[in-house]
């Protein structure tokens, strides 16, 4: 019995010692944990690439998994993991989270590492590297660039006698098409809008606001500006479709039901992006791609470059993470990922690879989305407070689309709540 006590004590002392092991010390291959948050086609493609990296790079071993969440739930997962010090080396993070994540001392500083010539940092699109850089500190590698487009079901549009979108179409055309396609009896809808209340609800409104000359916040970022006439007009457009025409399927999930509807041929127009193309191909749907409708010829869209953020587990692992990401984001590997998923090129030189033409043929409409990168002229506020502002706006949008509030009133309420937060000092 007496021997148990020292044994227990030794065990207890050993536990913290174990968990802090494997940092900088050690000589074997560096083990890295990667949380990619991808599903279906994208997850399969990434894991294939990781396997190949592990085969060809004996010094590094990457263990990749989705971490059991989808990309939109990666932030809470990583935040909790960081609080508990069980965080991965590499995580897939939305660009809109950069400002918040960068505050953590556990985020690695890659500023020097990305200057290595084999990284080709200058070859990435500028808005992708800008997203991965917060106040001069590089926190990750560009993972995916995308932008909001309209995916349409050509057959459904033809059947309803609606013209297919042209490059100069307007929001009135969008509304008319949605109304024509909409047929509640046949469970077919003009378009859809997520009402679950997250960023998914909010971000599709911003292009309408920008096209009307509005801004999200005041120039100094201390006041809400989305309740100015441009914002009200933007929300009124969506309201007319949802409340008057009833041509909008109000999606209580963050877009998952909308995607299923579109895949099963029950949705005419779908505000979405290239991240769906892989799944649509798998579903065998004949889809078309159009740029967003314009206001006075302005077809601005919103883009969301996402990053592979590197978290700090000591120099050795950070260096290995950079080595792996340099390989993963190199043009050849990117093209393979693009071929599997329909995602967009993250860097210029990809389009000069010999395989690029095949990729463009494989995903009809991909040129439109690539061209549309030029329409992503403005970005969402890079502020730690944006998440809450977005939640207030989402609440306003949802109450309007459900017919419980008017646009001006709903946006004013959201602006009031946002102002209270924005006025507090801090970035």
């Amino acid at each position, binding site marked *: 019995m007496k021997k*148990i006590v020292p044994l227990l004590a030794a065990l207890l002392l050993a536990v913290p010692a174990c968990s802090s092991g494997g940092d900088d010390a050690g000589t074997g291959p560096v083990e890295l944990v990667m949380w990619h948050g991808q599903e279906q086609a994208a997850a399969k493609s990434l894991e294939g690439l990781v396997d190949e990296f592990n085969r060809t790079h004996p010094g590094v071993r990457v263990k990749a998994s989705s971490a059991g969440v989808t990309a939109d739930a990666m932030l809470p997962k990583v935040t909790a993991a960081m609080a508990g010090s069980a965080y991965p080396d590499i995580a897939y993070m939305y660009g809109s989270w950069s400002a918040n994540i960068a505050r953590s001392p556990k985020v690695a500083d890659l500023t020097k590492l990305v200057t290595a010539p084999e990284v080709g940092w200058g070859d990435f699109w500028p808005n992708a590297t800008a997203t991965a850089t917060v106040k001069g500190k590089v926190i990750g590698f560009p993972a995916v660039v995308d932008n909001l487009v309209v995916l349409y079901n050509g057959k459904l549009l033809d059947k309803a006698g609606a013209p297919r979108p042209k490059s100069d179409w307007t929001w009135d055309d969008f509304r008319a098409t949605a109304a024509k396609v909409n047929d509640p009896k046949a469970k077919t809808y003009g378009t859809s809008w997520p009402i679950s209340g997250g960023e998914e609800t909010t971000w599709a409104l911003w292009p309408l606001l920008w096209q009307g000359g509005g801004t999200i916040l005041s120039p100094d970022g201390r006041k809400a500006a989305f309740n100015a006439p441009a914002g009200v007009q933007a929300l009124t457009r969506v309201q007319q479709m949802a409340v008057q025409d009833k041509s909008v399927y109000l999606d209580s999930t963050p877009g998952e039901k909308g995607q299923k509807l579109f895949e099963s041929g029950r949705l005419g127009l779908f505000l979405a992006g290239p991240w769906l193309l892989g799944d649509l191909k798998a579903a065998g749907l004949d889809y078309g791609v159009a740029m967003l409708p314009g206001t006075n010829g302005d077809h601005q869209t919103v883009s969301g470059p996402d990053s592979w953020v590197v978290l700090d587990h000591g120099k050795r692992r950070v260096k290995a993470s950079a080595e792996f990401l340099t390989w993963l984001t190199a043009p050849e590997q990117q093209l393979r990922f693009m071929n599997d998923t329909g995602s967009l090129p993250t860097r210029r030189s990809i389009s000069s690879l010999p395989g690029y033409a095949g990729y463009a043929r494989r995903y009809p409409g991909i040129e439109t989305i690539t061209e549309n990168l030029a329409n992503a002229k403005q970005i969402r506020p890079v502020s730690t407070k944006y998440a809450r502002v977005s939640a207030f706006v989402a609440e306003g949008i949802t109450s309007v689309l459900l017919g419980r509030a008017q646009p001006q009133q709903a946006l004013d309420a959201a602006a009031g709540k946002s102002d209270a937060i924005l006025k507090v000092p801090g970035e």
Partner: protein
Amino acid sequence: MSAPTATGGRAGRRADGTASRTRGGPAPGGGPRRRRLAEHVAGWSFAGPSTLLVLGFSFLPMAWALRLSFTDSDLMTGGQNVGLANYRTLAEDPVFWTSLRNTLTLVAMYVPASLVLGLLAAMLLNKPLRGIGFYRVCFLVPFVASAAAEGLLMGYIFDRDFGVVNGALSMAGLPTQGFLADPGQAMYVLGAIFIWKQFGFNVIIYLAALQEIPAETMEAAAIDGAGPWARFRHIVVPSVKPITLFLAVWGLIDSLQFFDLIVTTTKGGPVNSTVTVVYYVWQLAFDMFTAGYGAAVAYTLFAASLAVIVLALALGRRKGSLQ
């Protein structure tokens, strides 16, 4: 005999026992003292590991969260002390009050319904029917199954446009409902799903309690001319009263912590109509980067639920439910 006396008696006995051991303890020579030390060591080596687990996984985080609630931490950085500012903000936060109202709606739905339905179902399942084991399992399955899976399933069943419930309503010629997409209905639908999911637990506990009631008592009452209602009213209900109190408190705790079904169905929407206090805490801490404020909300919920539960237990004791 009222309960407080009984408790007092137990405490007295415990005090006596301790006292007698102390008196018998210090004997001449080192032997017995060493034996007592050995007893302590043995005792702690049994209790130690679980005590450490409870301390490490419950009390330490609780203490940490209390500290957190006085800061503006975002979990990324430590944050600065802000004193009671988080608690002051809370009083003026409309979403907090909405979340409180939603949580209380759930408590008001779940606690009475799960007790009544639980007891009724347990009485039915207490009958000597053929295949009774199968029926009993049926009631337990929703409780055992994962809330995430059930949430996804229910999301489809109660879908406004494609759900089978609305399908059945329209076939019956009744107007279809918004359900989870309607801010006026969503919380009630979630409450109903929660009752369906959770009351199987009450059924099992009640079933065990019912089987404790001696058959002779029921038989004697029947011979004395007590009808089914009288037997239920005067024998069954009083016999299961301690269990009822336990289940009421348990149900209260359960519904105050309602969270997982929301994540997989509505994510608090539409228009915050299904944000409960715990869901709001999670949103604040992990979606909105305001962990300090989230901890303040969590602590307010903790204080409020502690007060309610102590009150419920005290009331139950006074009525003599706890023996």
